[in-house]
């Protein structure tokens, strides 16, 4: 484990002088932000360590799992800033999984910065005050004449001592009371707001970074797992003798489904993480167990297997849309009247969007060493995996195999992508069961086909939209019928409307109805759940209505916002119309909105608010007669408050644009009698480099609290592109992926 080796070497260096160093431990309450996303996570406390070696090296633990969102760099930057550290003196070490010390160690819902900003500031400020206390003692001067800067404490007279010189005395200082800490004036920031390279860039660029799939444990064997192609099916028998005789195969056996493993990191996914029935193969290397897997002949019990059929779901949804009805979630006073008023202009449109898969570049994998208890010692387990909520796998070990959580050690590794997929640990349950059954330490690796077939998909859905505009060109009625999916009567994550979308939050005469169809296919959190599809429908339909009213889209949209205000005063999870108007106007201005566009090209605008972020995007597209289209440029305006790491923030926005475009243009998962029809990238492509637009990113660094940026720049992209295609061609696309509407991304 080379990257760990590098980090550990320095850590050992620090530990060796621990007696002479500063070891700071603080217990801090989690941010009490009012947001539905806070209920996604179960823990409520944060702890943190900062260590300073006497040679001046500062070690900062990064508490949260890294999946490419940059949080391993971002959170330590906040601490270093408040400490007055020089960033070059900082070594960032991914914290061990230890909730007693580090609290919730989870990444999801774009919440890491939002939840941790104040806590990280307190951590840094405490370290700073202890260093200043030490300097006051050693230099025999007043605290008030001292300041911490560039890894030194400096006295007004110009005398100074380095953090390294102060470390051992600082460690003896009383830990300051969190409520009494003061924070730096943002105008004096030297780290926050700058561009800092990700702390793991060097090991990534040299191939030394260790992901879960790279784990190597002494005595480790390799495993594959094969589930029923129709979810819910169980293995009855298989060609066991033939498989076990294959070269490199050690063992092969059936695992029965086990619902006791059904604990997910997010409460609403509980039950989905249950162990699915299938056939495990253990062998000497990954290739041997993959090759043997391809030769499996399994007899499946499919009596309880999924019969989901995407084509039928789509035709049923169309029938439901025609019939109307549904559960009323919001009822505007005179929607029906406005829609039938002959003075108004009206419009109806049926939108559809498919299931999509996460396809993290690193297929799901997990390494487990189950050790049977003996001579009075209890059963124990060691687990290595990339997970958005690594500590949660302990519950699976206890619930499914009876290994007490205190006897389970978890190692969280860098993730080759998460996007919500690694919030569910079904693959870890499989690896645990395989190690338990075989008595061997095993690394389970999924093939890409396993990874696609066994995903927790972004849910597909349908929305039937009706709207009216008055003779004076104003929105007069909005009627939205969401036709989505529920599992046992409960809408799956991402399906349905929350009622906090535009235009409903700022417009009275709106109705929302919802009809849910049953689904057996597993659904999960996929980058900006719900928002990524609702943005497409709502922001497209607002554009349709603006066109119907013969109004400029920017003008129509900003007029909808009305006066500048919080929708819920002081709640950052509620829309602020003023900030919305500002990002819309900025994106429009930077994109050259209103200019005359050449034939076959167009500009499209969309705005969306989610994850406490206001984001507006303008896409510039060009479309030829054969419906080949390319996105030349996307101009983005974002308000997530102050930016912590400018380079990381731009990277997240650019990545969201590419991800959004890739998904809307190319990707679709379909079910045929329960079976997922897409097996690998040849049937489920990801956008390639040649289609990449120019991406122009602008931040409004408002006095909003700093909030997360892993998700909110994705939702507006799809409607911005389809609105631009409308501008270029006059053709309205109400379906994703665009390949289904005859459009080819080039």
């Amino acid at each position, binding site marked *: 484990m080379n990257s760990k080796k590098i980090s550990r070497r320095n850590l050992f260096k620090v530990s060796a002088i621990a007696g002479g160093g500063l070891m700071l431990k603080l217990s801090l309450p989690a941010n009490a932000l009012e947001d539905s996303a806070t209920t996604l996570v179960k823990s409520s406390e944060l702890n943190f360590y900062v260590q300073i070696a006497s040679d001046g090296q500062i070690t900062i633990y990064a508490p949260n799992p890294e999946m490419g969102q940059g949080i391993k760099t971002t959170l330590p930057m906040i601490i270093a800033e408040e400490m007055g550290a020089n960033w070059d003196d900082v070594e960032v070490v991914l914290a061990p999984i230890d909730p007693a010390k580090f609290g919730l160690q989870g990444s999801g819902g774009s919440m890491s910065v939002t939840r941790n900003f104040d806590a990280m500031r307190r951590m840094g400020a405490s370290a700073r005050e202890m260093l200043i206390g030490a300097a006051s003692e050693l230099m025999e001067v007043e605290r008030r004449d001292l300041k911490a800067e560039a890894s030194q404490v400096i006295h007004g007279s110009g005398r100074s001592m380095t953090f390294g010189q102060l470390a051992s005395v600082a460690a003896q200082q009383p830990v300051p009371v969190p409520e009494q800490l003061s924070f730096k004036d943002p105008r004096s920031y030297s780290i926050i707001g700058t561009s800092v390279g990700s702390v793991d860039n060097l090991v990534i660029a040299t191939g030394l970074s260790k992901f879960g799939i790279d784990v190597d444990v002494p005595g480790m064997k390799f495993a594959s797992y094969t589930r029923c192609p129709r979810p819910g099916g169980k293995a009855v028998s298989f060609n066991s003798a033939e498989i076990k005789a294959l070269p490199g195969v050690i063992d092969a056996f059936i695992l029965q489904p086990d619902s006791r493993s059904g604990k997910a990191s997010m409460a609403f996914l509980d039950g989905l993480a249950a162990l699915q029935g299938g056939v495990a193969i253990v062998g000497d290397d990954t*290739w041997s167990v993959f090759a043997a897997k391809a030769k499996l002949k399994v007899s499946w019990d499919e009596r309880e297997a999924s019969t989901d059929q995407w084509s039928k779901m789509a035709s049923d949804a169309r029938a439901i849309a025609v019939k109307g009805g549904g559960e009323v979630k919001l009822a505007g006073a005179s929607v029906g009247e406005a829609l039938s008023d002959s003075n108004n202009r009206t419009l109806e449109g049926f939108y559809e969007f498919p299931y999509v898969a996460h396809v993290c570049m690193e297929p799901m994998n997990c390494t487990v060493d189950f050790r049977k208890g003996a001579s009075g010692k209890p059963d124990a387990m060691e687990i290595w995996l990339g997970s958005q909520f690594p500590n949660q796998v302990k519950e699976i070990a206890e619930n499914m195999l009876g290994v007490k959580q205190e006897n389970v050690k978890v190692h969280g590794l860098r993730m080759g992508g998460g996007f919500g997929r690694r919030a569910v640990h079904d693959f870890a349950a499989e690896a645990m069961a395989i190690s338990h059954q075989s008595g061997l330490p095993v690394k389970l690796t999924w093939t890409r086909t396993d990874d696609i077939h066994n995903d927790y998909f972004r849910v597909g859905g349908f929305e039937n939209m009706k709207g009216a505009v008055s003779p004076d060109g104003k929105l007069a009625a909005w009627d939205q019928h969401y036709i989505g999916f529920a599992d046992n009567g409960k809408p799956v994550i991402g399906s349905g409307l929350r009622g906090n979308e535009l235009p409903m939050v700022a417009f009275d005469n709106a109705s929302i109805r919802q009809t849910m169809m049953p689904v057996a296919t597993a659904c999960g959190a996929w980058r900006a759940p719900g928002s990524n599809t609702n943005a497409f429908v709502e922001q497209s339909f607002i554009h349709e209505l603006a066109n119907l009213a013969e109004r400029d889209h920017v003008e129509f949209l900003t007029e909808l916002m009305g006066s500048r205000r919080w929708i819920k005063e002081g709640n950052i999870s509620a829309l602020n119309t003023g900030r919305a108007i500002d990002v819309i106007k900025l994106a429009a201005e930077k994109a050259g909105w209103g200019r005359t566009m050449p034939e076959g090209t167009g500009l499209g605008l969309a705005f969306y608010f989610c994850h406490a972020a206001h984001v507006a995007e303008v896409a510039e597209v060009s479309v030829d007669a054969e419906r080949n289209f390319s996105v030349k440029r996307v101009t983005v305006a974002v308000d997530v408050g102050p930016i912590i790491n400018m380079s990381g923030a731009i990277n997240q926005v650019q990545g969201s644009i590419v991800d959004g475009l890739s998904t809307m243009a190319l990707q679709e998962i379909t079910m045929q009698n329960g079976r997922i029809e897409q097996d690998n990238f040849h049937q489920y492509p990801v956008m390639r480099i040649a289609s990449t637009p120019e991406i122009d990113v602008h931040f409004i660094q408002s006095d909003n609290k700093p909030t997360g940026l892993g998700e909110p720049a994705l939702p507006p992209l799809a409607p911005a592109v389809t609105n631009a295609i409308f501008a270029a061609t006059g053709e309205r696309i109400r379906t994703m992926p665009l390949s289904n509407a005859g459009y080819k991304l080039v």
Partner: protein
Amino acid sequence: MVSLLIVSTAVLVQELQKKGACEHCQPDKSAWVEVMNKYKLTVNGNALEVDVAPDMPLLWVLRDKLKLTGTKFGCGIAQCGACTVHIDGVAVRSCVLPVSAVSGPVTTIEGLAQGDDLHPLQSAWIEHDVPQCGYCQAGQIMSAAALLSNNSQPSDDDIDQALEGNYCRCGTYVRIRKAVHTAASFYNADKRNG
């Protein structure tokens, strides 16, 4: 761009040297065997033999047998490029290349740097803060390195063509293009000096 990042490439390279990272480009010798009828390979300059099935793709020989895990598994059907290595300087997808068909010296991401000197692409990747999750980046860099060895002043189109086989699921393509251009300028400077 040089001033963009607080952590400069120079600092990072010094760190790399301090950490003796080049030791990690060596294959794990425990996998070397003395038995006959095995496959002879040269990996990152080291000649060795491996005892594996003839149809085992080079990817799994590198990862599971030689413990060189910088080369990644993504799809197994040569669609995503995460497994890209060089054979005789040419970028190939190691996930579909049987070990029995390997016809020349193999270079992996661990062997791309010359001793302690990073390849210009590796420096540029750090300079431009390219990676997000980082999983695909070894493959991206190996494809780009093969391009630069034949074309030291690539256009955007040249880059798009050379990297067409490499997915980046996180969407870092904008920075990948920029980093390849930056590396090309380092590369040319190196050649003039060398």
